[in-house]
């Protein structure tokens, strides 16, 4: 089937197309540069056309989500819809049901999302949930930052063992890259503690976050994975944590990048939670300027923000000790889980309110980062869904980024408290994002950061993953019309995935199974074999499952997209 999207105004940052009136053509699921006269014409005259959105960091599938849904029925009752001819009924606001997750991304014009924390032991279950999420491809990142094997080898400086282990575990778990959460801290939580800063050793293993980060980064580059290490640093949410963040980024600066697909060697996730100065919540100040300055000066770093949306949401992370602190702070219900030799996790509901000084401050720090980081290729739009707010708020965040007037209005009419401008520099930032920068932070940059070679741009041969928004960029003034921006980005005129129209005029019109993206490293087979011989005795001794039941078999990824990597190339 051939299509031509006619007369749209195209934003395709990867191809340096910034608001050009042109046609976009696709055939058999791929972008092409010409079609026959039989092509079906979709008239999108003067409407915004972009590659489909790519979310580089969210929590959408896996045991945390299930526990969240089980213990928060009061969240599930929000967002309930009745089924239609196309869609199943939906439920949930911050932790939507699996089908709702797919539909809601699809309605926003998104086509890909990263599941940012897959415990290898729970990988099977994560993939089962991915199978239940339609319309949006999912890239799962397995957790390695508190893994016993990694901690041991990092201590001993055995980088090749770690690389072989990663290579092997990406195959075993069907994972895409290396996720690190509070390195050494979650392991310390198994002993009732935490670590502070990157040089505070984990109990028993006596290894530091610095050593673990460096080892995993070296292993990442030894294998030449498409994505860099993806890091949730230590000290999340603590006033005065920005030096830890900068130390984290700096500690891998000298490690040489091996993949040509990306520019960075470290991706900092939910930077907002890691950009605080001061010593306590009493004297807290923004550290966004310092973190943004560092990122502006250092091209080995990319980040996503984790923007606060000012909603009641559900926090869930492998940062177990942080969740306990949060529960102590707000007194709401707490779930905690230990994942054997690998990681841990916690869940706590949280209400971010514009009436609260701390929430207002965090809201402003996130926006500061967006506005202070100069190169949009180094920053991505996320809410760390659902931690800082649900992903369905991306359109609203876009409207904030495009309108300094709207931000000022929120501060003036007390939609957010004075800490938003007294403790941050937000009040002095008058930058307004344009549509091209929005297209960069929501599709082109995430695609580049993940080394995707099939999406994120409208290049012939790429997947026909396209979003059309009902906005005429030459007509609308986003500074004056934030509500119209939010509405349009929340209700795509068309969402096209692999050449199929999934959404039309904000309604899901077609449901398709999603793909799972994972990385298969070739050329490291010998090392993998050797490392498995080291791993198995410990595995058999300490895991509660047999190795035979641990592996994610092929039927868990019925629609895989495998990135083949030649180790070290």
């Amino acid at each position, binding site marked *: 089937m051939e299509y031509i999207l006619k007369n749209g105004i195209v934003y395709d940052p990867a191809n340096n197309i910034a608001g050009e009136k042109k046609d976009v053509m696709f055939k058999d699921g791929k972008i092409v540069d010409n079609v026959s006269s039989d092509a079906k014409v979709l008239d999108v005259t003067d409407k915004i056309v972009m590659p489909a959105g790519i979310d580089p960091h969210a929590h959408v599938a896996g045991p945390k989500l299930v526990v969240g849904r089980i213990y928060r*029925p*009061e969240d599930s009752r929000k967002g309930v819809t009745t089924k239609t001819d196309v869609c199943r009924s939906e439920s949930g606001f911050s932790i939507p049901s699996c089908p709702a997750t797919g539909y809601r991304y699809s309605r926003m014009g998104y086509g890909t999302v990263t599941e940012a924390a897959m415990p290898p032991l729970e990988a099977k279950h994560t993939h089962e949930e991915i199978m239940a999420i339609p319309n949006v491809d999912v890239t799962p990142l397995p957790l390695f930052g508190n893994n016993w094997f990694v901690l041991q080898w990092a201590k001993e400086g055995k980088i090749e063992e770690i690389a072989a282990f990663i290579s092997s575990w990406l195959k075993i778990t069907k994972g895409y890259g290396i996720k690190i959460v509070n390195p050494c801290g979650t392991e310390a939580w198994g002993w009732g503690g935490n670590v502070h800063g990157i040089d505070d050793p984990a109990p028993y293993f006596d290894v530091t976050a610095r050593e673990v980060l460096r080892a995993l980064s070296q292993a990442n580059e030894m294998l030449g994975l498409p994505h860099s290490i993806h890091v949730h640093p230590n000290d999340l949410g603590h006033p005065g944590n920005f030096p830890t963040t900068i130390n984290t980024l700096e500690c891998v600066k000298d490690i040489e990048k091996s993949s040509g697909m990306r520019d960075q060697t470290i991706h900092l996730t939910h930077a907002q939670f890691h950009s605080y100065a001061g010593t306590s919540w009493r004297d807290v100040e923004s550290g966004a300027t310092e973190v943004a300055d560092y990122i502006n000066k250092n091209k080995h770093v990319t980040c996503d923000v984790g923007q606060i949306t000012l909603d009641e949401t559900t926090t869930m992370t492998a940062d177990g000790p942080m969740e306990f602190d949060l529960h102590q702070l707000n007194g709401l*219900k707490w779930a905690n889980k230990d994942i054997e030799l690998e990681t841990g996790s916690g869940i706590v509901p949280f209400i971010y309110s514009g009436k609260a000084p701390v929430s207002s401050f965090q809201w402003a720090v996130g926006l500061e980062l967006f506005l202070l980081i100069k190169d949009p290729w180094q920053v991505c739009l996320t809410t760390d869904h659902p931690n800082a707010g649900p992903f369905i708020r991306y359109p609203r965040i876009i409207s904030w980024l495009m309108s300094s007037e709207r931000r000022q209005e929120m501060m003036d009419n007390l939609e957010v408290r004075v800490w938003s401008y007294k403790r941050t520099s937000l009040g002095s930032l008058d930058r307004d994002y344009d549509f091209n920068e929005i297209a960069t932070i929501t599709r082109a940059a995430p695609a580049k950061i993940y080394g995707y070679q099939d999406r994120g741009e409208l290049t012939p041969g790429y997947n026909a993953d396209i979003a059309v928004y009902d906005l005429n960029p030459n007509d609308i003034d986003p500074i004056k019309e934030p509500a119209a921006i939010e509405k349009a980005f929340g209700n795509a005129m068309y969402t096209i995935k692999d050449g199929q129209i999934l959404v039309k005029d904000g309604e899901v019109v077609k449901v398709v199974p999603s793909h799972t993206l994972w990385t298969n490293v070739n050329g490291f087979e010998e090392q993998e074999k050797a490392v498995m011989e080291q791993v198995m005795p410990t595995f058999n001794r300490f895991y509660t499952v047999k190795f035979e039941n641990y592996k994610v078999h092929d039927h868990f990824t019925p629609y895989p997209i495998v990135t083949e990597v030649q180790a070290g190339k």
Partner: protein
Amino acid sequence: MKTITLTLKKKSQIALEFDELIPDEVFDWEKDDFENYQVPVGNKRFPLTDYFDLEVEGTAEGPEEVKMILEGDCGRVKYIGCKMSAGEIIVNGDADLHCGAEMTGGKITVNGDAESYAGREMKGGELEIMGSTREFCGCSYIGDWRGMSGGKITLHGNAGKQLGECLSGGEIYVKGNCDILAGIHMTKGFIQIDGDVTRWPGGQMKNGNILINGKLGILLEGFVFDKIVKDPEIDGKSFSGKYIKYTGDIALNGKGGLYLNAEKNRELL
């Protein structure tokens, strides 16, 4: 004034859901609007007239001018008066789950028993049940920590477990007996129980007051003796008689007040 009388002619095995049939929604409905209305039953809808005979008299400008009378055993009619803000509903029979849930105003009278979750998350108005109710009367939605916050529930019969769970405002009066954990997690508001209580009123309460005129089976360990009070005044209301006052639940640093009739609970003195 508009009077709407629905007389049950067939009781469904599967519960009917009545949350769309509240004064706020139906004040301007004519008889044929009701006749055309399909009521949710399980995952389908059927004509309301399959289950009820209808009578509509008079006119109403708004919900406050509506009186709805449900005649017959509505023990399989859920969500009666759910989310209503004004007007009156009288049930001459039993009511099923969630009667008066989330109501913000108006009045519901049940001349029979009400199932569990009566007055769940009530914010205002009045719910009077002439018979008994079961678990979670005047409570939160399952999982939530925010319960009934306003209005008044009067129960002439007995209450089940976890009465007023997560109560954060409003008043609950029980003329009969009450089962375990009345006022669990409550933070504010008032519960009065005239009959006997099995055990553990006020578990994990942080604030608010519970007054028991009957005999208490077992007091929770988290309550410490404060004083003996005569004719106490609580939240601006005066009570006559001698009460043993406890403070709790100290497990949560709670400052809640638990008043036990001294006469009936002499062995605690």
